[in-house]
């Protein structure tokens, strides 16, 4: 009971701080997800391209960002981007130096990692939609863009959704890492709370519960989406 009062909303407890941290965590995940989705398709497109340079780039991109620990990618992006930006600014204004918004660095790093993972999902979904579909579309006189957006893509979603749902869960968990580069997310606020209250076990358990709830809610949404994307496969037959 005493411990629960530490979660009070307002000046006496850490409820409002944790809620603010949760907001930042969710903002990070919801900003990263659409960007990563977009880049997943672009990278997968590069892998299937006839242009060898594009193909090597896309494959290298995937290998690198799938192999590096997310923490390392995050730190490299954060510091490297900062030094590049400052070097660029120093060319114009030698006395000015800025510090990069860590949130932007977090979004960029997570986007790189998750677009690399997502491009594999897109690639295998594309393979799962049989070639005959694209050929039939071509035979009907659709151009390549029409064939992709009207015929192939709608059928790809069904194969993508479970894997993307999985990636979303991993993304939610990986946001915990951004506390390392000074983003005031859930984990960082919990660490602050622990620094004053000396109750690490309680606050980390609270974090675990919050993440479990997020995962549970996500799985409900995912089930709903899956039902919709495979609607053409259900019902009377």
């Amino acid at each position: 009971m005493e411990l629960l009062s530490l979660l009070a909303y307002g000046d006496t407890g850490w409820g409002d701080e944790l809620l603010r941290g949760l907001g930042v965590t969710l903002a990070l995940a919801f900003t990263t997800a659409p960007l990563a989705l977009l880049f997943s398709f672009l990278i997968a497109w590069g892998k299937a391209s006839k242009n060898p340079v594009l193909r090597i780039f896309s494959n290298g991109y995937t290998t690198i960002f799938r192999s590096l620990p997310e923490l390392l990618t995050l730190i490299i992006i954060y510091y490297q981007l900062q030094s590049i930006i400052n070097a660029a600014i120093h060319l114009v204004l030698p006395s000015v130096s800025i510090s990069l918004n860590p949130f932007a660095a977090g979004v960029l790093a997570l986007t790189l990692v998750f677009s690399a993972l997502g491009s594999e999902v897109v690639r295998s979904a594309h393979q799962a939609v049989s070639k005959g579909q694209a050929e039939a579309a071509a035979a009907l006189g659709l151009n390549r863009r029409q064939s992709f957006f009207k015929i192939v893509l709608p059928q790809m979603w069904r194969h993508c959704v479970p894997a993307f749902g999985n990636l979303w869960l991993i993304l939610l968990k990986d946001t915990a890492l951004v506390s390392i580069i000074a983003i005031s997310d859930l984990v960082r606020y919990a660490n602050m709370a622990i620094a004053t209250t000396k109750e690490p076990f309680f606050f980390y358990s609270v974090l675990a519960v919050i993440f479990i709830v997020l995962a549970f809610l996500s799985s409900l949404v995912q089930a709903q989406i899956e039902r919709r994307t495979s609607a053409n496969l259900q019902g009377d037959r």
Partner: protein
Amino acid sequence: MLSHLTDNVDLWIEGLTNTVSLTLLGVIFGFFAALPIAAARLSKNSILSRIAYTYVYLVRGTPLLVQIFLIYYGLGQFHSELKGLGLWWFFRDAFNCGLLAFVLNSAAYQAEILRGGILAVPKGAIEAGTALGLTKLQVFRKIILPITIGRMLPAFGNELVLLLKASSLVSIITVRDVMGQARFLFAQSFDLSVYYIAALNYLVIVLLIEALWRKLEGRNQWLHYAGGR
């Protein structure tokens, strides 16, 4: 840039040793911990399977970082109780706490891999074993397990790479793995190239694991066996 590598070879080797041993020990102990969890998950006893499912759900639903913090800092809060139990020497060490977190974490993931693999074992093979008069345990050890492990080889390779990447998290609780050494050298030199050296380390290990796995998978007959009837 390379001076950070050549001047501190001993540090990098210590880092690599820590990273590799954390990963390997985590996967191996995790595998043995996963066996009873997978068995419980598949058991007909609904209480047992529900407990195992809850464990897997809790572990897979929370960030590994939080799990590491919970074990290292969270249990550290109870150090007098742990001393009483004679376990404090274990939990005092960040390496041990990191390893325990990896084992508990990997066990949940590997249990799911095993469960999927066991469910995919051809029924005929199990029936044939029973017909030959093998006991349940013998059937499991001599028939189900080899087939499952063979079939699940790609998933285990994946888990090994994931755990290798995850092992970098222990640098946050002061373990000097590859990532920890990079952070240490960066704090001294403020030279970003140490992180690129660390990146190269991880990249090389991952590529080695992938090459090894391609070899293992090429040899494995169960991977290409569609299952007779």
